């Protein structure tokens, strides 16, 4: 999958920044949250995303805070193919657990790099999930990254619902 870097954020972007609380209960259709993405934090985000496939590049601790999964829908339904985050050198991660799980469950890939410094807005990035290679097509650079095997399987399968269906059948049998 491939996309244009629409946005580069600093550290500690939280899920309140991504999707405001007051509309969470007003719809149960995942697609509806796209219209409110980054409303209070970066209201131009949605305009920049129009008409193309997008990538968000971000500093560490992206998606911190509230467990609201609507943050993932808001991102994904703005045609964001994947997110590239910078690893916090102390904790070794770019994404807190709850957001990470929510993204995996919805098939939104989260890539972690040691350094995002070479990436600029407008760059075209290409993600080869199976081989764990991120290519900056514009700059002609390759990055290696790792994804836990279970998460990779989930992302390549496109979600977790099938797994649960099988388990329910077992429980009922």
């Amino acid at each position, binding site marked *: 999958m491939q996309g244009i870097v629409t946005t580069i954020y600093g550290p*500690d972007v*939280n899920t309140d*920044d991504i999707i405001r609380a007051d509309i969470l209960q007003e719809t149960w259709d995942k697609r509806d949250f796209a219209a409110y993405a980054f409303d209070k934090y970066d209201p131009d985000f949605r305009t920049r995303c129009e008409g193309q496939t997008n990538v968000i590049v971000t500093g560490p601790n992206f998606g911190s805070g509230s467990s609201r999964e609507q943050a993932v829908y808001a991102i994904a339904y703005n045609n964001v193919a994947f997110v590239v985050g910078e690893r*916090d050198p102390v904790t070794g991660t770019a994404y807190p657990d709850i957001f990470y799980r929510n993204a*995996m469950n919805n098939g939104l890939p989260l890539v972690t790099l040691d350094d995002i410094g070479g990436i600029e807005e407008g760059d075209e990035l290409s993600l080869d999930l199976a081989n764990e290679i991120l290519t900056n097509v514009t700059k002609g650079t390759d990055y290696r990254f790792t994804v836990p095997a*279970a998460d990779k399987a989930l992302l390549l399968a496109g979600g977790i619902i099938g797994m649960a269906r099988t*388990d*329910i*059948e077992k429980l009922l049998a």
Partner: protein
Amino acid sequence: MPQTMVEKIISGVVGTPCKAGDFLEKLPLTKVFLNEVIAPPAITYFQNDFAPVFEKQGKKVSVFDSRRVFFIPDHTVPSCSLKVSQGIDMMKQFAADTGIRMYKEGDGIEHVVLPEGGEIVPGDIVIGTDSHTDTNGALNCLGFGAGTTDAQLAMATGCLYNFTVPQSILFRLHGKLGPHVSGKDVILSIIAQMGAGGCSKRVAEFTGPGLVSLSMDDRFTIANMCVEMSARSGIFAFDDRTKAYLDAAQPKWDYEPVRVDEDAAYDRVIDINLDEIEPMVAFPHLPSHGVPVSQCAAMIEKTKHSDDRTLARVEDDTITCAFIGSCTNGRESDLLAGAEIIKGRKVHPNVNLIVIPGSRKVYNWAMKSGILQIYADAGANIESSNCGPCFGKHMGVLGEKGKMMSSSNRNYKGRMGSKDALIFLASPATVAASAVAGRIAAPGALDEKQKGAA
């Protein structure tokens, strides 16, 4: 082999010894709860994705264990919109169909109601559709927040899929808290030290000789805010206070205390001296921007010369709103600490003080003991139990000029309304003192003023 408390809890539920880094295809859960923000979509997706599976087997739609699933409407109750009401009605119907317990509007905030009702016990593995589910860890169990999909699956199967046993950081507490200093000041101080993402992928475990001086309410507050340093959860060691709390709550489940092995393979061990902690205030827009109230003036100056996007420019220390309540600080000792400060005083004319007991039980206690009368006499607005201004939707929503001093857990940009509003976080005592002073003030400041006048 020595184990962290997380490793012990997971080993206990799984039935085989586990260590940090182990991958579990399925983590069994002992309690699952959903609020009215996430239950309606979770039920909708549950019906869409799973109802055909039940039908195929000729079975009625059910949850994995109706005694272990709870619905708690707390964020926006009494309902503030048609859609919220429709969501709550959907929860009532699903609860009736599946036999799970549906709490009533006003019964209280999920993280207050379940512990006080004896539903949460040591050794539990709890998920809730709210990031502050870590609060439950004060009761020597593992609790963490989950999104809609994890909750939808957990209701059906009682499992969390693809789980890696997390590492832990051990916080060893020493000494004891000074006057007007509480668990809120402890956790704001720890978060300031660790940073907003400093505990990511790890569980914060609390033990040490200083533990004995912390009330259960202090521990709930500390566990509650572990997620503000991005911790997976927070867990407190078991002691006599835990036992006394559980005895009073009349636990509905059997339990075994989970003990601490200090020689377990902790990622780090951090010593905290409670004697040194002062009343704290966290500046907008992150809970990690905490400073002692005594250093407030210097922090205000710092904000004026900062290019940090997460640190808002603050012109002065005046406030327009104050809030005592929330899953962080809406329990008995929280309301009491605020009432002790505010008794015989008046809320400043420029300040709207909102007081919200964390549960119906806390509300009724505060009513009978005269605590609510103290707040009412001071000129506070008292609301029925719910999440209040902290959710930023149905009450106490801040306008552009709002400057809120809050006992809740998040001061993110736009959290309580306008993106231009400023939110400061502090203990109930500091919030009460500030509500009286009309500006950020430590609880001790009022004592000194009174002494000076006498």
